[in-house]
């Protein structure tokens, strides 16, 4: 018999909205927290490597909260929502998260339940993390010409949030990697 799992992963607010009156979602004016990686080698993308396309794949993205555009910049840790989306500023591309807006249910509604056992055939919890692939071919080729390493900055620009949404810690993820392809 399979071992019973009691593992649960909590995302966002786990309290029920109680008496919160939920109004129409807004575009918040206060910026969300940006993320900047440690330097990563991009030797794999040097001119001698003839890749035809490249993606930045981001795994384990929390989509339980606000919706946002994640703007990806190379070597520009000071980038913010007002930074032009140009290669000169290190802009590499964007991904878009359609967020659930916070927890609209009772206590525990947004806790990600693992399968109870091998006989649990229910669909996975809808708030299991999602993934994004950002095409970054042009930017990666450009930066690889003169950089052995780059940092990656993600600027989340929130497009919609509710009273139940965490508007600051919007971009939460588990893993990030480059993938290059040869056609």
């Amino acid at each position, binding site marked *: 018999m399979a071992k019973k799992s009691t593992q649960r992963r909590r995302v966002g607010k786990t309290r029920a*909205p109680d*008496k*919160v*009156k*939920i*109004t*129409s*979602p*807004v*575009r918040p004016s206060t910026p969300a927290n940006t993320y900047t990686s440690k330097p990563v080698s991009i030797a794999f993308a040097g001119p001698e490597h003839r890749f035809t396309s490249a993606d930045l794949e981001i*795994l*384990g*993205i929390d*989509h339980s909260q*606000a*919706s*946002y*555009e994640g703007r990806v910049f190379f070597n520009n840790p000071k980038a913010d929502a007002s930074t032009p989306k140009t290669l000169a500023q290190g802009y590499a591309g964007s*991904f*878009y*998260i*359609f*967020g*659930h*807006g916070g927890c*609209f*249910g009772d206590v525990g509604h947004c806790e990600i339940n693992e399968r109870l056992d091998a006989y649990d055939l229910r669909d*996975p919890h*809808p*708030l*299991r*993390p*999602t*993934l*994004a*692939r950002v095409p970054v071919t042009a930017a990666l080729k450009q930066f690889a010409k003169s950089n052995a390493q780059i940092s990656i900055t993600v600027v989340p620009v929130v*497009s*919609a*949030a*509710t009273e139940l949404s965490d508007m600051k810690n919007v971009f939460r993820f588990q893993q990030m990697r480059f993938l290059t392809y040869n056609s």
Partner: protein
Amino acid sequence: MADNLRIRKAVHNLSDSEVSAFRDAYGQMQAITDNRGYAYFAGLHGVPNWYCQHSTDTAPAYYFLPWHRAYLYNLELAVRSRVPDVTLPWWDWTLRPPRQSAIPKIFADRTDGSGAANPLYSFRINLTNPSIHHATTRKPGSPDDLPAQTDVDDVLSTGDWTDFTLALENRLHNLVHGWVGGDMGIVAVAAFDPIFYSHHCMIDRLWWLWQVRNGNGSMPDDLLDTVLPPFNMKVRDVLSVNTLGYDYAAAQAVVPI
């Protein structure tokens, strides 16, 4: 093309009488509070029933397109039960003025031509748990930030099924939800905005255009018998829009013979 297929037209190509019939159908549905009504269908997607399927890194977007096709199909049947000749129109967000304003006029006008409230402009959500009592709003971004035809072409050129559906969902679908903003910007309440269904018609149409070129691609076999709750349909039932009785066209002109 099979006989008697209904044609889902582009929003910008609807005639005045077609717009009037579309508004009439939504208006009638919005007045119905039982399971034939607009609020019932809107509540299947997010609050309070949460049936919608979007990608996770466990099941990357596998059900996103089939589930939403089944959703539109069932909604369209309910719409046609009110006004038989109406089909859901698709919002081509790649168009720019003068052919179409960013939010199409038929959705952006507060009133219809007679001065009555436009049922395509907004819908009032009334839910007790969670407590949501407001009319849907939109907070659109700059028209320049909507996807362009080149973005669509790039996604349609993706040959692999999983890569295609993920790109369509994340790079086009999600972008437009966030671009419209307001209720459309949040999964929980997006389907209460009347423009939701025409946005998803565009997504469904792009999937169909991809299918015309690629068939079902590398869609996993074990996906085909997956049910799409709450609808009594499996993934294999929604693979062909013609089997569901409709097709897409920018416009239609019947030649007299």
